[in-house]
C-alpha cells in the first residue's frame, strides 16, 4: 500500500491501558502470539514463516491486527518484561482478554481498535507514540 505523506497522521484507538510510550514501530499484517511466534528467551520473533520472523520485539511498539493463542499467553508478558525483552506497547486491531490481562499484569501499554488503517501510515522502523489517556497512535518521525 502506498504511503500517505505530508500530513501528521493520528490514529485513534478504541481501548487502551498503560503509560505513554514512544518508540520504533514493528508493524505486521499477521496476528501475534507470545507463545506461538516468540522466542521467550531472546525476544526474537522465531516462528518460521511469520511476517516478522527475525525481528526483535525488545523496546518496540508492536502493531498487529489480531491476537493469537490461548491462556498460556497470560504469563508470557510478565515473563518477557522481567527478562528485559518486552516491547514498549502492543497495538492490536482486535485482541482478547488474555492479552489485556497479561499486559496489565506486566505493566505494558496495550491498545485495541484503530480509527484508520495504520498500514497506510506507519512502517517498521518509524518512530511512533502511543498515548492511552488520549487514545491515540501517532507517527512521530518516519524512518529515513
Amino acid at each position: 500500500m502506498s504511503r500517505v505523506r505530508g500530513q501528521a497522521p493520528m490514529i485513534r484507538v478504541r481501548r487502551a491501558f498503560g503509560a505513554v510510550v514512544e518508540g520504533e514501530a514493528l508493524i505486521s499484517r499477521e496476528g501475534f502470539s507470545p507463545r506461538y511466534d516468540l522466542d521467550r528467551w531472546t525476544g526474537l520473533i522465531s516462528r518460521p514463516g511469520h511476517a516478522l520472523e527475525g525481528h526483535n520485539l525488545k523496546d518496540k511498539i508492536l502493531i498487529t491486527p489480531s491476537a493469537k493463542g490461548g491462556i498460556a499467553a497470560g504469563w508470557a508478558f510478565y515473563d518477557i518484561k522481567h527478562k528485559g525483552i518486552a516491547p514498549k506497547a502492543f497495538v492490536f486491531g482486535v485482541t482478547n482478554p488474555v492479552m489485556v490481562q497479561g499486559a496489565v499484569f506486566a505493566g505494558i501499554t496495550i491498545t485495541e481498535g484503530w480509527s484508520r488503517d495504520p498500514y497506510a501510515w506507519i512502517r517498521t522502523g518509524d518512530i511512533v507514540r502511543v498515548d492511552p489517556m488520549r487514545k491515540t497512535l501517532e507517527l512521530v518521525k518516519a524512518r529515513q
Partner: protein
Amino acid sequence: MQLTPDEKKMLRGGDGTAAKEALELQIEVGKFFGAKRLVPVSNVHMMGDIEVMGDSGKAFLERMSQTGAHCAVPTTTNARCIDFDYVAKLKQDPNEAAKEKQLIAYLRKMDVVTADTCINYQTLYQPHRNEHVAWGDTGTVIYANSVFGARSNFEAGPAALAAGITGRVAEYGFHLDAHRRGTFQVNVKTDLKDFADWGALGKLVGEAHQDYFAVPVFNGIKRPPTSDELKHLGASLASYGSMGMFHMVGVTPEAPTLKAAFGGGKPKEVVTITSRDIQHVYAGYSAKNNPLNLVVFSGPQQSLFEMKNLARLLAGRKIKPGSHLFVTTSNGVKSAARALGYLEQIETAGGIVLEGVCFYILQNIGQIRVQNGWSNLVTNSAKLANIIGAHKFNTLLRRTDDCVRIALTGEDA
C-alpha cells in the same frame, strides 16, 4: 466502575495487600473493556506451571503466598508441564521439576486445589446456566459458556488467581447478554463420526473467523453429540478462532431454536460445511516423507470414555518398535482407568499415559522432540495439531482409529 462497599474496603487494603493488588488488576482490565461493575464468581480455574510462568511468575506466586493471599472461592489448576513420575524418563530438567514442586506448594498455601486438569468441566465442576465463573484454559471457557450456559471470559493465570482471591470478575465480554448471541450461522451438512471430525469442523469455522467475540451457531447437527465430541469441537474453535462461545441449535441451552440463538438478531454470514470440506482438512496434512513414529492423544486430556476406547483399540496389540504413543489425562481419570483395567491394556501395548499434564506444554518438549528424532506428530486433536507447531512439530490430524493404526504400523492410509 461502580464498587460495592466491600469492594471499596478491599481496594483500600482492608482485606490484605494480596486482595488489594488482585482487585486493582481486575479493575484496570475491567476499565479497558468498559465494565461497569464486578460480579461474584463461584468457581475459578487457573493455569499456573513453571513452563508458562517462568521464574518471574514463580517469584510472584511466592510473594503472594507470603502476604497471606487466600482463595475466597473454590479454585482449581489446569494441566501442567510435569508428571513427576516421568521427569527422568522424558529427560526433563530436574531443576525445573523442583521449581514446579515449590510452585505447587505456593498455590496450595493459597488454598488452590491443584487438580491439574483441563477437563474440569467433565471431572470436577459443572456450573449451571447463568453462573459466573472465571476459567482458563480456553477449552474450559468455551465449554462453560456454550454447553452449560455458564458465563466466563478467557482468564489468564494471573487474572484467574486474582478472581480466586477477590471472588469476583469485572463484568464484560461473555458475562453480558449482548456478547452471547450468535453472530454467524454454520449449516452442517455432514455426519461427524470421530472426535477428529468435530475438531476439523472447529478448525474450518475458527480459522476463517478469528475473533474472540464471534459466536458461531451450528445448525443441522444430525445426532446429539456427546460431551467428548463437544469438548473437541470447543477446544478447536477456541484454538483456531480464539473463540469463547458457540451455540448448537437444539443442543446447547441458549439455542433451543435458530432464532433464539441469534437473540433476535440476524447472522452476519451463513456458511455451509460438507463432508468434502472435512475431507479437505485431512488431505491438508502430510508426513513430508518423514516417519510416522509419534501418536499423541492430548489437548484436551482424555476422559474415562476416551481411555476405554483407546484400551479397546490397543488391547492385545503392540505399538510398532521405535514408535511412541502418548496419552495425557487427569489423576482422577488415570486412577479410574487403572481400577478398570484400561490403563493396563494401553500400557501393555506400549502406550505411555501421563497424568496432570498437557503434551503441548510439557517442560522441555522442544528438546524432547530433538532427542527422539521426532518430526511428525499424529493426533486426533485438532487443537493439538494447531498449537504444537510452536515446538516445530509437523502435525497430522487423523481420526482416532487411524491414529491407533499409525501407532501400530507406522503407515498412514
